[in-house]
């Protein structure tokens, strides 16, 4: 992988002045020092040197090691029964706890997005992520792509089977290259959880998917869309109908009308089309989860606040409420952050000289645009510690944070 130029030169400053070690430690210890010391970290160093099963006694050791090794990437694994560094070769080494995590990869949207492909992302495709966030958030009362970490104590102690069940409960889109129709809703009714998701999708489907993504805008896209219809005659008819209209929106409308007409005329095929419109909307807009990551206890997932080695963007937390305003292009990068500190210090210095104020020590991160993200993170930590306080009473609330990579 080609790296950001001078990344190795920037990282010492980043880890020394910006990486929020105390908060990071506060998060991963969950009020218990052992939870932290038994946690696996893995580092990717320069030249793709990969270190697994790192673990640290406490904040200080973590901070020193990171500053010494200057990892290009940090991954967080599970909490084990013993400390991973010394005992991972032992026979009795088992993961006991980890956050319930969801990983959504923008690449998985390649067959339904038309603006970008592969690892690129723009504000248009961010809307897929925004929708995914809201749907996940509503389902869990709880991601180039996003990662979602569900951190309350009941989620952290789920078993593999239970994680699998939750992941599959949320997984609606299934099928590979040779399965054109990827959503199949069984039965006459639509499950409550899917209905809830559909309500969110329906609200934005036409402006977002039909118009902006322009899913019926070109011949190729129309053909992809028509592949979902398994019946040859209907596909032909629809193809002809689409030909009579010019815009994606008109074609979508005529499609909806065509299918609904099947119902009113009592067509024999109605049953197979009973959920078709909903299914297509889900196929184009429902979150595409990488469920292997959610199922295993010991999967590694990239840590928040680490720097993307290629783009220099910092992986920062955000909340589902603010996801619409989130601009993937405006994510702070290591370069801009360090510039911001320097600018601030320069200005500060001149001001101090002018007004001769007592030199007040301002935390470095407060001088930069990462400040806002840290506030979100701290609020999340505050909720977590509240949960711990309440946990003796009851623990059903879910706290989650979502991070953008």
């Amino acid at each position: 992988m080609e790296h950001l130029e001078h990344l190795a030169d920037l990282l010492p400053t980043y880890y020394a002045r910006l990486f929020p070690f105390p908060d990071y430690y506060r998060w991963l210890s969950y009020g218990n020092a052992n939870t932290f010391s038994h946690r696996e970290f893995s580092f990717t160093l320069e030249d793709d040197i990969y270190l697994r099963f790192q673990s640290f006694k406490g904040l200080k050791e973590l901070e020193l090691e990171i500053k010494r090794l200057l990892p290009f990437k940090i991954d967080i694994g599970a909490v084990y029964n013993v400390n991973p560094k010394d005992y991972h070769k032992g026979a009795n080494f088992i993961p006991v706890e980890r956050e319930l995590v969801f990983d959504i990869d923008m690449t998985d949207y390649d067959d339904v997005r038309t603006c970008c492909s592969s690892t690129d992302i723009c504000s248009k495709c961010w809307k897929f992520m925004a929708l995914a966030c809201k749907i996940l958030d509503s389902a869990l009362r709880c991601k180039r792509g996003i990662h979602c970490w569900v951190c309350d104590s009941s989620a952290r102690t789920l078993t593999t089977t239970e994680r699998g069940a939750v992941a599959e409960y949320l997984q609606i889109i299934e099928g590979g290259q040779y399965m054109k129709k990827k959503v199949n809703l069984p039965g006459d009714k639509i499950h409550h959880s899917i209905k809830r998701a559909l309500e969110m999708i329906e609200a934005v489907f036409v402006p977002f998917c039909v118009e902006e993504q322009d899913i019926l805008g070109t011949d190729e896209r129309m053909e992809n869309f028509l592949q979902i219809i398994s019946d040859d005659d209907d596909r032909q008819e629809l193809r002809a109908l689409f030909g009579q209209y010019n815009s994606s929106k008109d074609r979508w409308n005529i499609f909806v009308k065509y299918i609904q007409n099947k119902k009113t005329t009592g067509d024999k095929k109605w049953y197979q089309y009973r959920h078709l419109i909903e299914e297509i909307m889900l196929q184009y807009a429902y979150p595409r989860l990488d469920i292997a990551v959610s199922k295993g206890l010991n999967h590694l997932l990239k840590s928040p606040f680490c720097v993307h080695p290629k783009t220099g963007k910092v992986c920062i937390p955000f909340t589902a409420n603010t996801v619409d305003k989130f601009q993937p292009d405006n994510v702070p990068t290591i370069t801009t952050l360090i510039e911001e500190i320097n600018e601030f210090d320069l200005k500060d210095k001149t001001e101090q000289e002018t007004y001769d104020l007592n030199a007040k020590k301002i935390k470095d991160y407060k001088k930069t645009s990462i400040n806002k993200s840290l506030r979100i993170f701290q609020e999340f930590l505050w909720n977590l510690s509240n949960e711990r306080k309440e946990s003796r009473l009851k623990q059903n609330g879910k706290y989650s944070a979502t991070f953008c990579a």
Partner: protein
Amino acid sequence: MEYTKKRRLTIKPKNNGLEDIYQHDLQMYDFPPRGELLLTEFEQLAKERLRLLQHVENNAVRTDLKTLEERKQNLSTALTKDGLKYYAHLLYAKSCNSPTETDLEYRRKDHISHFILRLSYCFESDNLSWFINQEVEFFKLRFSSLDKEGVEKLLNTHKIECQQITPEEKDKFREELHLSTSSARVKNIDVTEFYKVPFHKVTDLIRSRRVYLNQGIAFIPQADLVSLFASYFKKNLYDGMPEARMSVGRMYGDERITSCLKSLNNVADRISVVWTTDTTPVDKLDELSKTSYPLCMRILHESLKTHHHLKNSGRMQYGLFIKGIGVTMTDALSFWKTEFTKKIDSAKFDKEYAYSIRHTYGKEGKQTNYTPLGCPKIISSSVSAGEYHGCAFKHMDQNSLRQKLFNYGVPAAILYISAINEIADLAREQNYLGACTAYFKFIHKRMPDKLISHPNVYFAESRVILANNGTELENKDRLSQSGRFTSPGLASPSIGTPRNIDKGIGTPLRNTMTPKRDRGSMSSTKMGRTNMTPVRTTRATPKRIETHLNDDDIAQLMSEDI
């Protein structure tokens, strides 16, 4: 637990207290049996239980049995035929409260035999999960026979956490309950009882989105209570295993018991993979993919050749398959590298992919010698956009499947429209193994000798037939090294002991005999030569990869796909 006592010989006083011990037809096996038992009875009970579980397994994979009643009926017939009448009886037992002496005797046998198999199956994780899966399956079938009283009694005896919802709650969630429970199972919300249980007790219902879920509480209708019981039952079995292991430890040294226990668990027998015993050169894969690959593998091979990439699950499914057909690790590395480097540079390949290939061969990480995936695993795999793995008959839609069959079949005039229809119809009826067998039939113009339940079995069967047909004269020189050249008589595993062939451990069959083939001197010289090729005679016991899917190394294997 007092297993040790059981082998002392004594005569059991008739039903002394049995009624107190065995209050229910359906047991959770939450306490071990006490008392004494003849060694012969010990052995017999154990063997019969094993046969029972094998019947249960065979029954579960039958896709032609649609309803629960059909499944039960079929199992019952099989059990009765095999002289296991008491299990057939237990299968339909309602939990009658005033058991006869026969009932009690059956319950006792059920109890003891279960615990004996525990001793034998508690050590190795493959064995254990097989054992527990079959026990759970049998439990579910039996549960469905219980009457209302029987269910309630079970609920009370075991204090299973489960609370009936109040009419107020029902009103409050009426819409959600209606939407989220299948109409086939719940006709009318008003007359159905619902129960509140923590979601992790009914993961199967959550997974398939069959119940309403609110704040971590699942609302399950009466008809789905079986899930709750089954998960309790399963947990109980898992929790009992450490105890079972300790009990075996205490018996250590008693040859009579240990040899009996050892004879019971040979899970390798049940893994139906056929390891090809010789090396298959990679330059033959293109051709083999057309002649001898099952459809799923042919598609993977083709996509790899077209896109010069396969995503992780595809690499795993195909990589293990070619390992199974005898591609060496060195060859496999160069094979994958040749393809992948048409798109990425070779350094990137070495860095990101080579590890997982060596890992497949047990040369990295935990050094587990993984076994090629079988059909059940492939059929149940999840396939996402941009992926090509899985079972072609399940994971392809009808149009794509027909198109593919057409493309593969027509140039060679192998598959005519009627054949395509037959295969695609079987796939639509979800008879995936049937569809695969039909595909085999049309490609080879005859049925396979063995049930196709593993891609490597498909391959091996194909090689035997093609070799015997002598259709590949020009290739024989090299290909013969891969085919399982067994003589026609012995090649058919339906006679003799098929299991020995399946194991792929120990000496390959054809080393032990002279191939009898009178189809021209040329081929027999080839045979002679093949016979001389050194064969791998020892092989580590293969592990089923699916049970290791959560290991660290797999986690790494599964790591980001670019």
